[in-house]
């Protein structure tokens, strides 16, 4: 069975994949941050000196979305797995 691939469709799928990578990573980071954020706000209300460490903890899951973004960037700019098929 031959794989019939249209270059436009493949590029579109690549873009959808890139979007999903960033978007889902964003949701993940958000879920991670919500608990930490709530806890940090609670602690800072009791002890303002904790703000710096709290911020530090709160920003930890942010790396997740950067991973997603890295994957997206690779997909969009640096990786051409279908180059053989895509080139007419």
């Amino acid at each position, binding site marked *: 069975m031959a794989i019939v691939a249209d270059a436009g469709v493949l590029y579109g799928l690549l873009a959808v994949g890139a979007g999903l990578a960033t978007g889902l990573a964003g949701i993940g980071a958000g879920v991670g941050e919500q608990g930490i954020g709530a806890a940090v706000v609670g602690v800072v209300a009791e002890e303002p000196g904790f703000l*710096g460490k709290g911020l530090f903890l709160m920003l*930890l899951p942010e790396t997740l979305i950067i991973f997603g*973004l890295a994957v997206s*960037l690779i997909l969009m*700019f640096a990786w051409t797995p279908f180059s053989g098929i895509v080139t007419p």
Partner: protein
Amino acid sequence: MLRPVEMSRVVIAGSKDVISPVVEKLHELRLLHIVNYNGNQPEFELGKPIGKAKEYSEDLIKLRSATRYLDIKNKAPDKTYPESQVLSEMDNLLNNVGAEVTATFERITAIEAEVKSKQDQIKALTPLSVLPLPLEAYYGYDSLATFVGTAATPVDADVARVSPVNEIFTGTAKNATLVAIFVPLDKAGEVSAVLSEHGFSETSVPKLEGNVDSAIATLEGGIKSLEGEKAPLQKKLADMKKQYEDLMLATDEYLSMQTRKTEAPLRFAETANAFVIDGYVPSDQFARLKSELESAAGGRLEVQLIADKEADDLVEKGEDIPTKMDNPSLARPYELVTRLFAIPEYKEFDPSLLIFVFFPIMFGMILGDVGYGVMTFLVLIMLKKKFRTEGWQQLINIVMIGSVWSIIFGVFYGEIFGPLGLWGRIMGQLPEHELELAKEAGLYFGEGVYGSLGRLGPLGIFPMDRLASNAVLLLIGTSIFIGVIHCSVGSILGIMTELNYGEKKHAYFERLPVMLFQVFFAIALLGLVMGQMIMVYLGALVIVVSIVMMVMGPEGAMGLAHVPSYVSNLISYLRILAIGLASVGLAYAANQLAFYVIMPMLSGGAKDSSEFTIPAIIVGILVLLVVHFINFLLGILSPFMHPLRLHYVEMFTKFYSAHGGGVEYSPFGHVRRFLKA
């Protein structure tokens, strides 16, 4: 610079006769960080306050209650006072002014309470107006029970059943039925039980006389006259606040200073005839402290330096050497960032100078727009005049230096309020055919030029359109490169810190391998991209060596668990690119929307900017303003938060957290704000 100021441990011992001049001198010099005596040596007792400590604190309490009533908060001084003026006006301020403030404030509180009670009465009376009874009819009976309130369903029949003798008045208010029921006292219990089945809820009737409406009118009149009395009193308080604000703050400062001085001996050790003060002083100030104190005490005092070895013993026993950060004035605002995380310990490094180097560059790389940079700068200049407390000033300075860098990077990126916007109109653009050539050759880095200079840099990469794919790839590399340098600097500080603490194993087998791993991981990546396999092999080799070193380190094989985080540390620096792209993207979208969608559309499909109609241009500019404003707000917040995180998470963890927070150097004394020196 990177290290806190060198401190010396001193002991001051003297005769009790000279304790007052010594405390006075210490307060004036502001050099000695006093180590509180904890009273655990049998030869010495805790010192006792000197002079009029009690009076000062009583005065302070009086003053503080007046300042609280006037709602005076600490602020930047508008006016300073000499101590003599404060002293001469203090009596009047504390007694006459203070008493007047208190009396006025209490009268206002009383008025407010009375108004509240009248309002409650009006609230209770309003529904009663539907019943045909005067107010005195509701109370004052010996043999009758009265029920007044709302009922959900008609009650007449049931009440008549349990109490044949009754009088019931019913009225319908807006959304409830109001009833007033009078029954003989001995039937009260049964009637109450019956009423509760009808959803009866009782209203309390104020003990007033006459017609309901006229009673309400009287109450309203009362409220009005009370409010009339309150307004001038409030104005009086506001006037007094205006008149005495600075003087009160100056007096507060004077009294706090005096209290601190008179209570200072509580921190000293004392015998029957002598006192001993322990403390730290910056080493280069020791000679000055010694000579000044000795002349103040007329020789009846001994200031002694404690030898290093003995001082080390004290530290061993749990004494903290205070940390005084020492940075050039330009870098000093960044101490705020350090402080927000933790005060470095005396033996640790103070990273403020490094933050000064890296933070604004990262801020600039992310924001990178001449327009936004200039706007941020101007807004900050305005804010700087408004927020004059030290913390705000530092914060504003931090962002201000960042905004200068963002103007610089804006020039590299060719952005004035985003690409496609003003840059092309002011500085010019590449002609169409040259753009086509660059795109075909895969060397498209943007279309802007530097006026007649054209495009600059190798391959003509500047001004670089950040949204072009070549530029994105280049910026990925640059971000990781900055990450490697940033993390390596952190690791080097980590190694040196561990060596300062004498922990060689931690230095060479915990901190060093991390640096080797990260640097050579980046080299291997670079080799892959450039196709230089020799770099890949070299990188891989050193990575393996560094992993072996980690396993040999203090954590053993558990150290390997951290390896993924060293990779993610580096990838984390991609946020420099990513957040920048988001901000450029929004600016680009705004310009595209205004110039290529809204303006042509509203001009009836005009193709050229000269054909745009005036309403179209106005709507377009409004859209530009709104979107750019949102982007501008985000554009200050994200470039601030994310480099902050890169410092706290990626860099500080390499050297900072190992030994816990330090104690900040806070010398005994006072920085005069409202008082003239």
